[in-house]
C-alpha cells in the first residue's frame, strides 16, 4: 500500500501505462473507470437498508 501511495504521490514519477495494441490507458484513469463500474455493480446488488414504511 505504501508503494502504491508513493507511486501516486510522487509528481516526478513517470506514469504507468497499460496497453493492448491500439488500446492504451494510464493506470490512474483505469482505476477511476474500474471504480465507477464497481460502484455501479455494488449499488445494484448491495441490499438497501429498509426505511420506516408509512402509508
Amino acid at each position, binding site marked *: 500500500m505504501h508503494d502504491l501511495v508513493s507511486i501516486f504521490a510522487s509528481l516526478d514519477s513517470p506514469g504507468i501505462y497499460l496497453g493492448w495494441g491500439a488500446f492504451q490507458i494510464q493506470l490512474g484513469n483505469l482505476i*477511476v473507470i474500474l471504480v*465507477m463500474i464497481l460502484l455501479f455493480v455494488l*449499488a445494484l446488488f448491495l441490499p438497501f437498508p429498509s426505511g420506516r414504511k408509512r402509508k
Partner: protein
Amino acid sequence: MSLRENPPREHAPEEDEYHTWTGKARGALLRRLPADKLLPEDQPSYVASWIYVFGMGAIVSLVFILASGVILGLNGPAWYHLSDLGHFVNSVHLWSVELFFMTMVVHLWGKYWMAAWRGGRTLTWITGMGAFLVSIVTAFTGYLLQTNFDSQWIAFEGKDALNSAGIGAWFNVANLGQIFMFHIILLPLAVGAVVALHVLLVRMHGVVPPLEAAESDAQLQTGVRPDSEEAGR
C-alpha cells in the same frame, strides 16, 4: 389518456384567485411544485436502492468544486504554484471534479437502465445530459487554466478540434484571458443553472416508478387513495 382523473390536490389554489401576472406566475409555480414536493418527507416505496444516492453524491461534489474554486479564484491563478495551501486547495478542486464525474456517470448509468425519462420526465433526462456535457467543457477549460506543462500541451493539441469546427477564434484555448472567463464565470453559471433546473424537475415529477409497474401491484393497493370511492379496482 388515463382511466381515472388525477385527484385535485388539497388547497390547490384556484386560477381566478390571482389577478396579476405575478400572482398567476406564483400560482402556476406553486401548482407545479408545491412545498411538499420540493422538500418531501417521504418517497415512494420503490425508491430503495443504493443507485439512488449517486445524484446527491454528484451535487455534493459540485459543492466542493465550487467552494475550492472560489478559494482558488480569490487567490488568483498563480497562487497554487507557489503556496502549499494553494496546492492543497488545487488538489481538492481536482479530486472533487474526479468524484463529481464518477458519481454523475454512475447516476447516468442508473437512470438509463431505469428508463427514467418515462411519464413526462423527458426534460429531466435532457437537462441531466446537458449538465454532463456542459461539465465536460467546463472541466476542459479547467485543465487549460493549470498554467503548467499539461495545460500548455492541451492548448496546443486541443486547438485543432476546435479550429476544425470553426470555433477556435472564440474559444481560443491558448488565450488565457478568454479561457479564464469561460471557466470561472460563464461555464459555472451554465452548470449551476442546468443542475438547478434538473433538480427542480426531479422534484416536480417525482422519482420514476418501476418499469412494468401496474395499478394491480400490491404497493398501490395498500396505499390510501385520496379518492377512496375509486379504490379497490
